């Protein structure tokens, strides 16, 4: 949902339909970004003081000195398990501690020994463990080069852009610009450090204004910056959230990519503006290697990308190659943050999968959602009352469209007081929830983190009396304007606040809640309608820290506390489901995210693919976009295409703005109802596969929705694709996202691979661009030859209704006539899988035998489900089919589908899984 401010009203009425860019800062308007970006590449003023080097078994420390101002920094270097190098730089003796981001790493990362290979006057060479990797620390100027064999994998400060604004006392002369000028250049000794103070006092160091807002900056400048060079790299990805292409663009001619969680009203596409969430993780990829940079900093951050090949045409590159004169392609990246320290994790791959595991080892993996959360969600701002909810629920049954969750937006509350219900419209919430439960369905109600300032509101009174609100710069409770009017913002960075918040979800606290009620955290950037850039003042305080330090972390904490509350209310038995709009590195551990307030436009449908792919690359797999588009009203064609696309994206929820006409799936004539029904049903048949993929993501950190290059890292044709994607490694989806499309061209990767159209079972060779004619009912999806995908073909009202239904295995043979897959089954909603209560088997087809092995012999689970059918794609008709199980043999029968010339062998199997 977007903030709809009175003064924005006017703007909209004037006919402009786009973000009001003037509400958000450019780099030039953000003082530290402007300052830092003014530094140009060149000789770094920093020098490593090798004599200060200390090397223990697990870490190296070393002091750096800025020769301009003599301020000393402390460099720490760690070799972490799993091919990760951590570089930390802080002030040696800061005036006060600088913020180090807590709660994002799942633990203190385990280290590996470092050893000194060589040392001379100008540097040291350290071995990075067993592989032939070394890090070279050069002293003058300071730089770090990470090598493998003779190749440089990555260099730090090679362009001399390391900058560290040390904390300083405010000069008393600040108030008198004349006096200030006089003193400029005079060396001023700081009693405490004795450092030389040379920096000029620039505008925006001690105070900054933007529009009508002023940032008091009591601690002065504190920005940090560092550059990374990536030789041989032409493709970089990640650093969500931006409404941009999957492959990041160079930023030389515009603003850097910005990471600052903001509630952007009607966001624009294809630009580097900040959006609701921020994950400061970038992946770099070429055909040989994938690496990653994790910049652990929660303050406002800007990322510049430049490339020495960016401007070159394909012909130019070819010419370089022929002439042999080509310089190595290289991408240079530079990170700038407003406060905190430099704390970088360099993930050295070498494969994409390695980088995913490396990042997962630091921040954890995707929370394993309840199975139902992977099904279809029906949302709208707002379902008006209980009767409305009931009739929408009945509408799905009447039109035989399955759904699992119905959602309530802010209007369900009593005057935007979260944890309450409108006494007239939702007078008997438990009755309503019971009605939904009777259909084996669930509900989500919104709980936002802004709390109405109202002395008759229990939540507000408790937070106030416990002192849990964020404070303004003068020490009073911070108040901002949001949905309820004047609102306070609980300080979710406090563990005691989060514990209290979690306790509010207990059934006896959250009146009207039941076990099938789940939660949605919106506006947690946090959104403050009357704040600078629609968010909180940076000089608000969270205990010892400023909001400036923790801003990008706030949303993560809100979701964390909410998910904890859901876990606790069931005594730790049930899995939570919480959707969030704001997020940070590590948010994957707490639930799902969506791409915020998009619009009913074809370009917004298209951008949903790269936006979710980018999130998947940095660990957040449970991603989706509002199906149909939030603002405005979609054409019927767009709505149908969006359902078809959404059915193949991880989080599948339709949502709509309050002011748009109703758009439940059956409101567009029987033909379109049938098209939407078919798309949703396709989703339900594939739920076993989705579930298995999420189990895998939970276990390994691999993204569920993947760019093609992740599976085909050596095929440059895949590197920039973002109109198609993979689910797991076995399903390739190229949704139709063009208006009036008659066909799409999908790239099928893999030189020796084959792909089967899941609708026609037609076989296509890999490594080709395939033109596929489409009609309104087409969703081009391909199953990889060599894979086995389980489906449940008996689609029912909701996923819970399908729990005991049998599976059909789709065995797609590769040219070697083999295939492999997995099947994962558990109860679908509890944490009992942690207690080995599941079935996880590998399925294999080779030598005309389909067999399975238990992937986890410890695991115990019984299911009433069975395998009812095996469909083998790409085989010839067998003369005989036999079935063997341990002990008993059950009947089987086979049919070949006469209508399809290539073989579709169906074997009926009944047996224990």
């Amino acid at each position, binding site marked *: 949902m977007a903030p709809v401010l009175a003064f924005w*009203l006017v703007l*909209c*009425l004037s006919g402009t339909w786009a973000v009001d860019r003037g509400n958000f800062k450019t780099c030039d308007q953000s003082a530290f970004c402007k300052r830092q970006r003014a530094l140009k590449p060149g000789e770094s003023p920093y020098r490593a003081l090798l004599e200060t080097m200390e090397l223990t078994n697990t870490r190296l420390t070393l002091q750096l000195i800025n020769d301009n101002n003599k301020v000393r920094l402390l460099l720490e270097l760690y070799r972490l398990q799993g091919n990760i190098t951590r570089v930390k730089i802080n002030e040696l003796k800061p005036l006060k501690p600088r913020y180090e981001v807590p709660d994002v790493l799942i633990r203190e990362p385990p280290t590996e020994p470092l050893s000194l290979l060589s040392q001379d006057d100008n540097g040291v060479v350290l071995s990075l463990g067993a592989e032939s990797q070394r890090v070279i620390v050069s002293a003058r100027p300071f730089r770090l080069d990470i090598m493998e064999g003779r190749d440089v994998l990555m260099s730090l400060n090679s362009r001399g852009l390391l900058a560290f604004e040390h904390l300083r006392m405010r000069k008393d002369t600040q108030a008198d610009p004349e006096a200030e000028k006089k003193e400029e250049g005079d060396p001023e000794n700081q009693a405490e450090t004795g450092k030389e103070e040379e920096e000029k006092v620039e505008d925006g160091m001690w105070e900054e204004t933007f529009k009508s807002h002023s940032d008091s900056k009591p601690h002065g400048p504190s920005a940090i910056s560092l550059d990374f060079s990536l030789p041989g790299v032409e493709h970089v990805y990640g650093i969500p959230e931006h409404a941009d292409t999957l492959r990041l663009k160079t930023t030389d001619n515009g603003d850097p990519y910005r990471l600052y969680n903001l509630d952007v009203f009607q966001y624009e596409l294809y630009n580097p503006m900040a959006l609701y969430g921020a994950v400061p993780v970038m992946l770099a990829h070429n055909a040989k290697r994938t690496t990653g940079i994790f910049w652990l900093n929660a303050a406002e951050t800007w990322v510049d990308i430049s490339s020495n090949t960016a401007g070159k045409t394909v012909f130019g590159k070819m010419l370089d190659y022929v002439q042999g004169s080509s310089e190595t392609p290289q991408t240079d990246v530079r990170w700038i943050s407003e406060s905190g320290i430099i704390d970088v994790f360099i993930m050295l791959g070498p494969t994409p999968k390695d980088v995913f595991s490396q990042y997962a080892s630091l921040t954890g993996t995707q929370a394993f959602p309840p199975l139902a959360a992977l099904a279809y969600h029906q949302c709208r701002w707002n379902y*008006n009352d209980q*009767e*409305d909810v009931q009739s929408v629920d009945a509408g799905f049954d009447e039109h*035989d469209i399955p759904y699992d969750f119905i959602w309530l937006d802010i209007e369900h509350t009593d005057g935007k007081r979260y944890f309450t219900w409108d006494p*007239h419209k939702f007078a008997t919430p438990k009755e309503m929830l019971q009605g939904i439960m*009777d*259909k*084996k369905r669930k509900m989500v109600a919104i709980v936002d983190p802004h709390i109405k300032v109202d002395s008759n509101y229990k939540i507000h009174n408790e937070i106030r009396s416990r002192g849990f609100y964020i404070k303004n710069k003068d020490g009073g409770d911070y108040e901002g304007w949001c949905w309820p009017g004047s609102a306070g913002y609980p300080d979710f960075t406090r563990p005691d606040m989060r514990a209290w918040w979690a306790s509010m979800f207990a059934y006896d606290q959250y009146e009207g809640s039941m076990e099938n009620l789940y939660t949605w955290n919106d506006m947690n950037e946090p959104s403050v309608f009357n704040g600078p850039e629609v968010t909180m003042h940076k000089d608000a305080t969270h205990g010892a820290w400023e909001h400036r330090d923790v801003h990008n972390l706030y949303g993560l904490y809100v979701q964390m506390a909410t998910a904890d509350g859901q876990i606790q209310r069931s005594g730790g038995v049930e899995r939570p489901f919480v959707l969030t709009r704001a997020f940070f590195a590590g948010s994957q551990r707490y639930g799902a995210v969506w791409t915020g307030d998009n619009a009913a436009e074809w370009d917004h449908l298209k951008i949903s693919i790269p936006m979710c792919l980018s999130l998947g690359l940095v660990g957040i797999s449970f991603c989706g976009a509002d199906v149909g588009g939030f603002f405005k009203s979609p054409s019927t064609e767009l709505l149908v295409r969006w359902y078809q696309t959404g059915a193949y994206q991880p989080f599948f929820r339709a949502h709509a703005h*309050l*002011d*748009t*006409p*109703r758009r439940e799936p059956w409101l567009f004539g029987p033909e379109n109802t049938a098209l939407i029904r078919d798309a949703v049903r396709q989703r339900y048949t594939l739920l076993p596969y989705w579930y298995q993929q999420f189990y895998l993501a939970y276990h390994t950190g691999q993204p569920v929705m993947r760019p093609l290059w992740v599976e085909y890292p050596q095929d440059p044709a895949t590197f920039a694709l973002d109109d198609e994607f993979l689910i797991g490694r076995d399903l390739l989806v190229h949704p139709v996202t063009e208006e009036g499309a008659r066909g799409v061209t999908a790239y099928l990767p893999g030189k020796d691979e084959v792909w089967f159209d899941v609708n026609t079972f037609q076989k296509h060779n890999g490594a080709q661009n395939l033109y596929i004619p489409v009609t309104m009912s087409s969703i081009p999806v391909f199953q990889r030859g060599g894979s086995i995908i389980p489906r449940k*073909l*008996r*689609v*029912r*009202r909701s996923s*819970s*209704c*399908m729990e005991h*239904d049998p599976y059909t295995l789709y065995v797609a043979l590769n040219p070697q006539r083999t295939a492999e897959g997995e099947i994962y089954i558990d109860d679908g909603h509890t944490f009992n899988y942690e207690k080995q209560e599941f079935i996880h088997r590998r399925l294999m087809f080779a030598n005309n035998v389909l067999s399975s092995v238990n992937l986890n012999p410890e695991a115990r689970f*019984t*299911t*009433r489900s*069975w395998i*009812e*059918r095996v469909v083998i794609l790409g085989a010839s008709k067998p003369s005989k089919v036999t079935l063997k199980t341990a002990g*008993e043999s*059950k009947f089987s029968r086979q049919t070949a589908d006469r209508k399809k010339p290539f073989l579709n062998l169906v074997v*009926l199997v*009944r*047996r*224990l899984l």
Partner: protein
Amino acid sequence: MYCPYLLLLLSLGVSAVEVQRPRGVPLSKRQFYEEGKPFTCLDGSRTIPFDRVNDDYCDCQDGSDEPGTAACPNGSFHCTNAGFRPAFIPSSRINDGICDCCDTTDEYNSGAACQNTCRELGRKERESLQKMAEIAKEGFMLKQQLIQEAKRGLEEKKGKLAEVQTSKKDLEDKVEALRSVKEAAEQPEKEAKERHLKAWEAVIRKEKDMAKMAAVFLELDADADGSVSVAELLLHSELDQDSDGTFTETEAQGLLGGVDKVDTVAFEAVWSNIKDKYISEETRESVSDTDSEQYPEDDIPEDEEEEDEDDEDEDPDDGEYKVTSLSFSIRLVLDGPGSPPTTRTQEKKDDEDEGTMPPYDQETQNLIDRMTTFFCFLFVHRNIEKEISFDFGPSAEFGYLYNQCYELTTSEYIYRLCPFSRVSQKPKYGGSETSLGTWGKWAGPDDNVYSVMKYEHGTGCWQGPNRSTTVKLTCGKETVVTSTSEPSRCEYLMEFTTPAVCQEPPSLDSMHPDHEEL
């Protein structure tokens, strides 16, 4: 686990149904499922051994081999529902843990604890059918009365119309005669004549104004209760006194002289306050003026109208009002063709304006009195004309709703439906009224067009359409608004019961579902 009991149950299931047929097969299709004989899919696509019927594996494309299991994605299951109505449900609802058939037969293996509710449902349905039938019966009788009343009313109105027209003609003749007499008598007194002409003009202007005032009163009095209220006035935001964009209740009350409502008499005082700003509904809705052709006076030749252009300019609203244009025509008649309206001089006009209106001679006074009566007729005339122009249904059975209003109070709002006029919403605890639409059209489906009314062009919504209301009419003994809702932003839905939609009920016997199985 292989489900051994499933097969067991299957065979049990087959024998448990009293009429021998596989589970989920309706009686009407029993003959296609012959025990022991090969089964041919109902679409004829293939034939399978009978033991594959209901074996929980889908063999037929059309799902016909699995009428009693959920194996086929497109199958359907037949519940007998003895005691209630038989039904087909999608086979995906078999054994899904949710009770769909009231006889519980769809949940034979899911563990769901379903109760057989068929008899109860049947009883309730019969009761409600009976109740509905009674309502329909009584409603239909009421409807017949309504139709009769409508017929009478229409005749009456037509009579009145004719009467008005006759009186008008009569009046015109008399006026004409009077004029001739007057002209003859006043011939020598040039000055006096001019004065009288002037006086006439003043009279005419006043009458015109009165006519307009009356028309506006009728229009403002949306609920036709014989008075204009604050709320009714509020619908005309152009009357906003300080033109600040919001026409408040206080302002409206101010216009009404501090009271909540005014009757026709008191309205005269109000009229002088609002006449300059008032914009007619008809102007607003830019309804074409074609129905003014109904007035015979419009047959006046064009050149006469042109002659009078100067006078018309004095009142730009002329022509918007049938009544005023009518009075205008009367004046033309009175002035007679060729009499120059522009003979007066400026000075003289000023002179006269300073003094009080010259006393009328008796004849003139008589004429004026007659004119007043005449205008009263005209208002009636206009109203009747308007009323007759509505589509009140095939037998004018909806006619009784005209000039009536019906209210429903919810927790927040008072909703008001004035059929064939408007729908509005007013906050219960103060605040101004919002128009949810004015009468648009009958909007039911083709076979039942009089079942839905549509009111359109209400107050606009931010970023949205103008408010509109759909009124669904159902048969009832009483005429009541039973519910309102806003299913989509600014699109309201109202349920309204009225005897006027009651259909002749079939005899109760034929309504009983006699095709109940068992």
